[in-house]
């Protein structure tokens, strides 16, 4: 696994929580938004989003609901739970601390 893949793997949960904070989304929409908002940096194997989403749902961070608007194909939409919002707040703080400390170390060298 490349260094970039390791970073992406470690940050996937936070990124998904961030995306779902604003609005409910379905899997394909999430993969496209992730790629668009990061200029492709966080683009990954799209299918691997699902095991992560399902694990997060088992852990109570997100909920899911099948919706079929206007007779179109039904899709499973994910929403953030209260626990998910709390987790997002903690993870954001941790990432910010991590980046600050990393930046300090990189600048000293």
């Amino acid at each position, binding site marked *: 696994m490349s260094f970039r893949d390791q970073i992406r793997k470690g940050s996937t949960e936070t990124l998904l929580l961030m995306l779902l904070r604003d609005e409910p989304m*379905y*899997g*394909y929409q999430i*993969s*496209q938004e992730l790629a668009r908002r990061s200029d492709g940096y966080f683009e990954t*194997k*799209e*299918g*691997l989003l*699902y*095991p992560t989403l*399902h*694990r997060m749902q*088992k852990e109570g961070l997100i909920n899911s609901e099948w919706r079929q608007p206007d007779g179109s*194909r*039904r*899709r*499973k939409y994910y929403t953030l739970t209260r626990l998910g919002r709390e987790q997002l707040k903690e993870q954001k703080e941790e990432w910010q601390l991590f980046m600050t400390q990393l930046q300090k170390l990189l600048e000293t060298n």
Partner: protein
Amino acid sequence: MKSNLDQKIDRYLEAIRSHLHVSKETEYELLDEIAAHLEDAVVDARQHGLDEDEALADVAARFGLDEVGPALQTVHAPWESADAIMACVVPVVAALILRWLIFAPDGSAMSWQQILLRPAFWIVALVALLVPALQFSRWRYALITWGVFWVLTVIFVTLPNIQNW
């Protein structure tokens, strides 16, 4: 009759399904969600000028078909097992309460008429039905639990000598 595209997507889904050893309900939900993703991705790829076969090949490569099935199995299998074990606990607990309800302290068993008139009996019966249905969202578990509960009730009432069980 399924379109050529649907048949090809079905083949992709079959490749993922071969890695899944979960309940039929879970399997159906997983594959339906993935089918929706693949269909959306093919539509997008075609809007970018790819023909159907190119679009499918592109979508399959971006999706990671070989990795998704095992990864989903890893996530879902332990929870499926835990749900099944918990569902088995319900009729056992219901049976223990049932035994206490049916046999008086002197060891005599109630008649059908007496047992069916007891609100406590119906509360246990409803719990045995509703807990698996609501907790696990699986009607199959609920019906099996309900069936086991009634079989035990019949055994307890019709065979009072089983009181020492």
